[in-house]
């Protein structure tokens, strides 16, 4: 096991082209407190290759209390090229497909087998990936990749043992919390209070975390008009909820602008996960225009109309 594994062949660009790898988009969802399945949005981040942002259109998903179910269909058009001369394994071996997720921010590394390919498989081999990651695990930036590995070492296979990674079919990084994937929304139920308001308890926006502890858009489900919000349908299906969130975020940003840290925030000098970093992210990723209150109000809504 110790020395032979050093000399195996790995997937290169030429072989990758020959096998015809065809992935469908990665889909994400979670199960909420009422055991309902809710879809999440996984969209590429502008200007960053292979980096995706995961958001919940209902602005409810929290990796601390909700699971994450990922699914993806992949097709390998010509699996036969993976075997024999020019391939990765002998014809009597079996090649496995595994899904890995790992993250320094989350301090975890996991791998799950999702499929197998043999020499005798027909063309257009379809593999369905379904992976559930339980709550309380994902944080920061997480890499997800799909790899080929030697699942069964054939008698003719001399240069690698079972478990050897033979190549990466695709990989992507997904950004979870700490990078502003969630708006800090708190629900309360009090018929004597207004429909919504904003709490701002900000001392140092460069350091204070972008969480309900420091800033929150409070929505009162006990208010007589709350039924019009249709919170359960999510921001994309509720123009009033979208207006509340847009206005709430504007109030937070205007409040932070009053602090002495504004220039440092715009120079990306904030700590990870802070209010300052969240604002920097909104401004630079979604083109929010913070030059004046009226420009900010307009640009937040232009952004929301595109995304939700």
């Amino acid at each position, binding site marked *: *096991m110790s020395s032979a594994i050093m000399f195996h062949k790995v997937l290169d660009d030429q072989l990758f082209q020959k096998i015809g790898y065809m992935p469908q988009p990665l889909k994400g969802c979670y199960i909420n407190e009422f055991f309902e399945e809710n879809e999440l949005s996984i969209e590429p981040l502008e200007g960053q290759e292979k980096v995706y942002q995961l958001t919940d259109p209902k602005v409810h998903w929290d990796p601390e209390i909700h699971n994450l179910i990922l699914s993806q269909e992949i097709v390998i058009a010509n699996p036969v090229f993976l075997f024999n001369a020019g391939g990765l394994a002998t014809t009597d071996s079996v090649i496995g497909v595994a899904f890995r997720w*790992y993250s320094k921010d989350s*301090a*975890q590394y996991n791998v799950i087998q999702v499929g197998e390919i043999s020499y005798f498989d027909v063309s257009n081999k379809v593999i369905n990936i379904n992976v559930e990651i339980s709550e309380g695990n994902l944080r920061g930036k997480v890499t997800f990749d799909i790899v080929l590995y030697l699942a069964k070492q054939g008698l003719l296979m001399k240069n690698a043992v079972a478990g050897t990674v033979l190549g990466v079919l695709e990989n992507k990084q997904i950004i979870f919390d700490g990078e502003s994937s969630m708006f800090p929304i708190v629900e309360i139920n009090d018929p004597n209070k207004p429909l919504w308001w904003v709490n701002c308890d900000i001392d140092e926006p460069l*350091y204070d*975390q972008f969480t309900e502890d420091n800033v929150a858009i409070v929505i009162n489900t006990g208010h007589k008009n709350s039924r019009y919000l249709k919170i359960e349908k999510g921001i994309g299906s509720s123009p009033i909820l979208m207006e509340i969130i847009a206005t709430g975020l504007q109030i937070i940003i205007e409040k932070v602008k009053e602090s002495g840290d504004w220039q440092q925030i715009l120079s990306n000098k904030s700590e990870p996960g802070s209010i300052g970093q969240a604002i920097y992210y909104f401004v630079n990723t979604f083109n929010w225009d913070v030059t004046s209150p009226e420009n900010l109000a307009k640009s937040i809504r232009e952004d929301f109309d595109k995304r939700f």
Partner: protein
Amino acid sequence: MWKTLSKTDARKEFLTWEPEKAPEPNCEDKYMDLRKRLIEASNLTTQFLDKNESDSRKSDYLYDLKFGLEMYNILMNEYKFTPRLAANDQIWIYLSMKVVPDLVYKRWGLSESRYYKQSRRIWLKTIWWYIHLSWTNSIDETYQILRGFTTDEIVQLVERSGPNGYRIDVTREIMCQFSQVQMNKQSRNLFRRIMKLNTARIKIVEPALTKGGTKYYVEELIKYFDESPRNN
């Protein structure tokens, strides 16, 4: 929601502490119950070690181990603490600087790195991860498995996380299997060598996907040194 404290704020606060004096807690009221539980755990640990391990030469390690197990149990079972939270340095900095700074002081004095300065040296964080990466069924069983190790193994296990995070199935299997080997061999360097070999091998193979899975993979890691006298 867990409170956090940034390194910058921790540094500011640390500079206000008086030399050679145990820092006092300065946390929100909602943390006082957790503080009480951790102080109790520390006292229980001291009593337990006085009673059961009084002739041991590695009292610091056994304190880390026993207190670590008690803290792990309290946080996981009473406070729903998760690995995701445990990966956040700022949560550990808040606990170290604001909630139980006197406990950190008792073990490390005013060593900045153990409170906030170096991510992998923050004491509470390090011992939580040491227990998490070694956990085997119960407090008692985990204590028995880890009892024969030393502070050197804490460093080896926790600091060799690599750039991509811990393979928890692998570390737990290594600790479980090595605890049996170590009793016979008394080899301090062997653990370090096994961890190094593991670091080299996981660049090529995925332990969970090998024939026989993680258990067999770890058996092979340990057996490698049995079969290679020149490497021993």
